[in-house]
């Protein structure tokens, strides 16, 4: 059975199609692997013989783990929050419908930072997720449950959401592939909103081929989401194995001159850059002068949108309700009880940023920074096909290491925040292992490739070639069976 779990999803689908593998057997293997869940990666796991509809299509027979931020009709959906404890949505998110419509089977709902607010998965209302490489460390966040399940062989692949790095950073910390598509590529309908202008659904997979397959199933215009456009021409992997003629820019601000990048991470990054050159790619430094302000802009805009998005959790229609003598009392008690500290912190930040008299100084200013960051990328893409950076400045850190220091936690997304602000796609692929600063067992390091809007196929092509050159085949010791 262990061998089954080592297959990529694409390999398994191929065997199922050739009838070399039974889809029920494959599904059950994962269900069993996930049942113990030593990493606390799942919040809900499909019961045995869970009724599933379509078994035809390009994803036929593949179990998929879904971040608990996606609404699934009749199936527990909490977004990692106590305020939605017991909530069973009356409808299913478009992304999940697309997957099941193409033959995938819902394996389970994965743990996450509450309302996707966090970079370590310690902000879940249902307990922290552990990193399969070292259970004393975090898996990253906010799609930490999805990343840990895929890396820990409890799911062949998973979907997550990325607002400031929530797919790419946990993918990096868990040694798997994670991709944030262009804003608008995948429908947000049924994806519980954190920051609507930034949130985007994407794949977390074992390799680039799986990422391409899963993304091609997810993308598409949805009449239920006015901001969705899909990816024109779909996703196509050319299978090229070199990088000849492709130009890679290393932004000084996010790599060369960036503070706080661990030595081990830097070493893996430099090694990967050398591989790119070895494959015929051109590499040069470039500038994204406003990107260092990305974190500041992000932590105004995202909380501002969140303060409105999370206002609907008022105890009136669904989720928990803490009764009180009067209406305001009920609102206050329900929200005080239901939301965790980080969510409350961001609601307060965002409410403040939108208040009359402060709007222009905070929200307005942050929007202007956002525009500058997008313009920086536009300028860089005139000279380069891609921009490359380390995905995370550090490898997985220890549980509790940053929980008392929100700013240190926020800096985990330093290299991943500028892309969603510009609305552009980016992938993180595992590039090697490195010791954390201060020593310890080696942990995965992610390598980020970003491209212009709707350049997903190009990014995946480059990532595919690079993946082969890197040859990353390490798996966490504790899950190798």
């Amino acid at each position: 059975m262990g061998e089954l779990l080592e297959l990529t999803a694409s390999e398994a689908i191929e065997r199922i199609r050739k009838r070399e593998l039974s889809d029920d057997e494959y599904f059950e293997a994962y269900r069993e692997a996930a049942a113990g869940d030593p990493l606390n990666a799942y919040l809900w796991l499909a019961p045995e013989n869970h009724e599933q509809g379509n078994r035809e299509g390009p994803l036929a027979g593949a179990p998929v783990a879904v971040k608990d931020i996606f609404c699934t009709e009749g199936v527990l959906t909490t977004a990692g929050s106590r305020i939605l404890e017991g909530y069973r949505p009356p409808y299913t998110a478009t992304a999940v419908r697309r997957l099941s419509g193409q033959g995938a089977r819902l394996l389970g709902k994965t743990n996450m930072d509450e309302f996707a607010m966090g970079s370590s998965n310690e902000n879940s209302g249902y307990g922290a997720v552990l990193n399969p490489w070292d259970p004393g460390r975090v898996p990253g966040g906010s799609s930490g449950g999805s990343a840990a399940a895929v890396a820990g062989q409890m799911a062949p692949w998973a979907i997550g959401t990325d607002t400031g790095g929530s797919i790419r950073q946990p993918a990096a910390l868990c040694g798997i592939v994670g991709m944030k598509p262009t804003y608008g590529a995948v429908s947000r309908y049924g994806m519980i909103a954190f920051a609507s202008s930034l949130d985007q659904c994407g794949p977390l997979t074992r390799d680039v081929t799986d990422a391409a397959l899963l993304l091609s199933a997810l993308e598409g215009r949805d009449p239920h989401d006015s901001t969705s456009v899909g990816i024109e021409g779909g996703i196509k992997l050319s299978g090229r194995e070199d990088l000849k003629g492709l130009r890679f820019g290393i932004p000084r601000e996010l790599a060369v001159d960036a503070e706080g990048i661990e030595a081990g991470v830097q070493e893996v990054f430099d090694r990967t850059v050398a591989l790119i050159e070895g494959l015929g790619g051109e590499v040069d430094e470039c500038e994204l002068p406003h990107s260092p302000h990305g974190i500041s802009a992000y932590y105004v805009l995202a909380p501002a949108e969140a303060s409105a998005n999370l206002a609907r959790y008022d105890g009136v229609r669904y989720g928990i309700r803490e009764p009180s003598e009067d209406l305001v009392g009920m609102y206050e008690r329900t929200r005080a009880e239901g939301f965790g500290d980080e969510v409350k912190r961001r609601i307060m930040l965002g409410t403040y940023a939108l208040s009359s008299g402060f709007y222009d100084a905070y929200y307005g200013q942050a929007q202007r920074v956002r525009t500058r960051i997008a313009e920086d990328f536009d300028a860089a893409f005139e000279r380069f096909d891609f921009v490359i950076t380390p995905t995370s400045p550090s490898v997985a850190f220890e549980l509790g290491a940053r929980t008392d220091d929100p700013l240190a936690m926020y800096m985990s997304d330093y290299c991943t925040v500028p892309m969603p602000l510009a609305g552009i796609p980016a992938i993180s692929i595992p590039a090697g292992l490195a010791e954390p600063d201060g020593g310890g067992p080696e942990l995965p390091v992610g390598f980020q490739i970003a491209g212009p809007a709707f350049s997903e196929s190009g990014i995946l092509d480059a990532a595919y070639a690079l993946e082969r050159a890197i040859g990353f085949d390490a798996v966490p010791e504790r899950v190798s069976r």
Partner: protein
Amino acid sequence: MSGLEAVIGLEIHVQLATRTKMFCGCELSFGDHANVHTCPICLAHPGTLPVTNERAVIYGLRIAAALGCEVAPRSIFHRKNYFYPDSPKAYQISQYDFPLAGPGELGGIRVHRAHLEEDAAKLIHVGESGRIHGSGASLVDFNRGGTPLVEIVTEPDLRSAAEAREWAQLLRATLRQLDVSNVNMEEGSLRVDANVSVRPEGSGELGTKSELKNMNSFRFLERGIEAELERQRELIAAGEEVQQETLHFDPSDGSLTPLRSKEYSHDYRYFPEPDLVPMVPTEEMLEEARRDLPEPPAARRERYVSELGVSEGAAATLAFEPAYGEYFERAMGAPGGGSAAATAIWVTGELVGSLRQADAEEEPLASKATPEAVRALAGLVEEKKISNGAGKQVLAALVAEGGDPAAIVERDGLGQISGSGELEAIVDRAIEAEPEAADEVRKGNPKAIGRIVGAVMKESKGRADGDGVQKLILERLGQG
């Protein structure tokens, strides 16, 4: 109290009569069971997203066109944040600094803007007062939540409660003929709030205003504004200041009570709605909005007065009441008959009166009196073939049984008596019958003539022409 001028602006919410809601596919309803027209979107379930109803945008554009508003090439929705159970998302999707339509004008009053938004759900407070304070519980009916609304805001150009009421009626007439709303104040598909302040006459500044809500008829609108103007004038006379506040009108006793400031003082924290893309009306949508746009009532009134010579009062009735307007247009389309001015008077005077007497609901075009017949009747009177009084009898016959006025005149012997010996004989008999009055007239008191005229009319059964009779009496009494 003199010296203080009223300054009034109106904010009007118009529920659009689209098939579905503003941002979801639920059907609109009125009077259905609670919460049957709901879905995950209008109940604000997690993860749901709004999608703009294109019909509502076209209806909004149609209203903008009728109000002569400039349409924004690109307008955006904002979120207006507030916590209340009638707002399931805890924000209303509305428009803020980039509305659908900018400045316009209707009937001499400037329109500041018109924008699209969604209606709130309906709260039903269980308990004695019917309002949230002092009620035992509140229930929410989400059927209304998400109904498309157009909010129209005027400049503070209105100067009296009556003028505000008249303008609101003009607005309703204008909107009614667009077929985009039921514009019914009692049902709440037309809701008019008023911003009221006073200032020294001649001052260019604006005083502190109060906002009046819940005036659900034109009569209440006028009464509410009147009451508030009086209250403000009294405050100022007593040396006190007007506070900016929101007042709730109680139709049962006409009183105005402040809403607790906690309920309504908000920092709405507007910001652009990230779930929707900017609204850019296409040329097709603009064309559809303008297509078959009926003549606006204000223009119609103006045209009737200046081009057709119709009196101001009759022109207003015809322009603001589309059913009578259409009746009049049909009458004027007939091959012959009275002038526009005379026909207008017959339609807005006798016809309106007798139809209202018969049945308040009856539409003029459904009446037995056809537009052609009424115009022919106006012609008979105008050409002095029958008297005004006989004309009224003919109209009553037309309303009762239909038919042709000339035939009715013939049948009932209503032809005018004039100039002939017949009228002179009747006049002489009347003078004889009223000797005291005749003496008074001879002494130079013309007022006394009324009794003699009355006697003539009585004997002639209204067939005599009043002016001619008067002249003849004066002649016979040596006063001509």
